[in-house]
């Protein structure tokens, strides 16, 4: 039992860190440019497809990952310059409509190019097996994901909280006019943030590709989770995104693993088998509703 909990906690950590890669870009675009980007999940999907296709072409996971992430960054650049730049000043409804349209286009384009079947993406062979940690075996590849996730989280923190560019980003979020009048090119800054967010999406999509199926529609479910994360954490806050990701990742994973057996101990088997999966899937939404009920601005409001 203890081992199960330990293993599931690690799984939750891994899932949470990947959610963070998505939520970080989303919360910056959302918090700084005040833009609802429903197509953020589509960038994740397209990124995963890029990685899978490049991996097949180059026959190396690492080259594939690099090429895929670069490709997604270029796509992000094109989207920002042609579409998103016009959306920042518009109301939320226009943004919802435009990015919903992008989802339709992305899903259909992917289906047209790679077909409706899921793509297979294998982890690098060196990491395919399990490793022993503290008396139990855990997949090496998942450990790698945890390591990469932690490294990116640290890098992001240093970038946003300690670097000059990060200071510009925060300043641009707090007051665009004043930042511009100080001679900082906020437009270029926003473009850079958006491109960076797109690259992080592809990184998450590529890393998760071997664990999940690379298929059409994979972006939608994860998009909703990423939104839950940034709402829990507070829109625009990187720290909030990290805490929110870890909460959502562990609660969701542990809930799915432990709730059914927990309920079976408390309720008649019949009721438990119906209620268990249902409760496990809605746990994070309950959590979010509860957090919003007590803290309507999220745990770490970016703007007081």
């Amino acid at each position, binding site marked *: 039992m203890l081992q199960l909990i330990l293993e599931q906690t690690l799984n939750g950590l891994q899932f949470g860190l990947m959610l963070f890669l998505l939520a970080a870009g989303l919360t910056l675009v*959302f918090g700084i440019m005040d833009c*609802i980007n*429903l197509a953020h999940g589509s960038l994740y999907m397209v990124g995963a497809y890029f990685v899978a296709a490049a991996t097949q072409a180059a026959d190396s996971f690492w080259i594939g990952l690099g090429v895929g992430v670069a490709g997604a960054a270029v796509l992000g650049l094109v989207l920002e310059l042609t*579409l998103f730049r*016009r*959306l920042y000043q*518009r109301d*939320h*409804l*226009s943004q*919802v*409509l*435009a990015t*919903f*349209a*992008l*989802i*339709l*286009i992305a*899903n*259909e*384009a992917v*289906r*047209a190019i790679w077909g409706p079947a899921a793509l297979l993406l294998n982890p690098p062979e060196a990491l395919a097996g399990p490793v022993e940690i503290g008396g139990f075996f855990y997949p090496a590849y998942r450990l790698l994901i945890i390591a990469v996730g932690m490294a990116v989280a640290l890098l992001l923190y240093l970038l946003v909280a300690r670097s000059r560019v990060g200071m510009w980003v925060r300043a641009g979020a707090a007051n665009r006019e004043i930042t511009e009048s100080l001679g900082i090119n906020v437009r270029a800054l926003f473009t850079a943030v958006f491109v960076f967010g797109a690259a992080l999406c592809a990184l998450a999509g590529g890393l998760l590709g071997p664990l999940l199926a690379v298929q059409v529609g994979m972006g*939608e479910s994860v998009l*909703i989770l990423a*939104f*839950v994360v940034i*709402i829990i954490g507070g*829109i625009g806050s990187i720290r909030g995104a990290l805490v929110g990701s870890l909460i959502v990742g562990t609660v969701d994973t542990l809930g799915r693993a432990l709730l059914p057996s927990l309920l079976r101990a408390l309720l008649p088997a019949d009721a438990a088998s*119906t209620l268990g*999966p*249902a409760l496990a*899937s*809605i746990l994070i*939404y*309950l959590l*979010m*509703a509860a957090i*919003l*009920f007590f803290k*309507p*601005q*999220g745990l770490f409001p970016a703007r007081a």
Partner: protein
Amino acid sequence: MALYRAAPWQKPLSLALLLAALALPTALSALDQAFYIGFATRVLIFALAASSLNLVLGFGGMVSLGHAAFLGAGAYVAAICQQAGINEALIAFPLAMSVAGLFALVVGAVSLRTRGVYFIMITLAFAQMAYYLFVSARSWGGDDGLPLNGRMTLGGLPLASDDALFYAALLALVAAMALFGRLVDARFGRVLQAIRENETRMEALGYPVFRFRLVAFVLGGMVAGLAGALLANLTGLASPNLLQWTQSGTLLVMVIIGGVGYLYGGVVGAVILLMLEETLVGFTAHWHIVLGLLLLAVVLFAPRGVAALFGPARSDEHG
């Protein structure tokens, strides 16, 4: 935005369209295109659902991304009623409306404490909860949904023929639009729109802002529930897909295309979107791409919706 005021040509035009709709099944049968009666019914039902969202979104200023939950709840109530042996729409439909309304009351009571983006997301969260509940409810069919055993009867008359269901949907839409039209012009609608414009001022004037919003939200949920019950009768299935967030997104898109805050915005949007779908499917398997590009064009070139393109319908545009 300013106070909604119907354009002078709106009444004659809607009467003419109503007459055309009344003649539609006969005309389609005469042209040997009876297949399209089912499609027309679908359009009417989605026009009803989108109009109910327009009350919440356009007049109440509440951007709900969970409206499909009420649509789905209505569909499931209809299917469950039939499973329990109630095959009379006069009982099942009001029941569907009450359950959807009660659900909306709970969702609204919690969500309306938040503002802006947080409201969008919390309504979405509730819809997702409902979606997963229905997906895992095995006694109601789980993933596969709950099928209906044929259509219900309305006051003893069977809705089995496509014509009958078409007229039932038309009746529901006309009744809802008449109600919304009166409401928007009544004190309730004026206060609701004023709250949308300036919440703080209305609060200061002593209006119970929360209660007005909640009533509008519940009313929107009830009408969506009615649409869901009709939809279950049309398709013969109450499926969890009805509650998916993309469905809520589609309803939102309908309202935005049609024109947010125009009485007929929901109807116009539903007609345009479904007709586009139906036409594009005939041309290419990848019609979603074309639809997406058209939606982008609407955002960039007709930001206030199609209904706004036709003449001034708002007092601010009279000068």
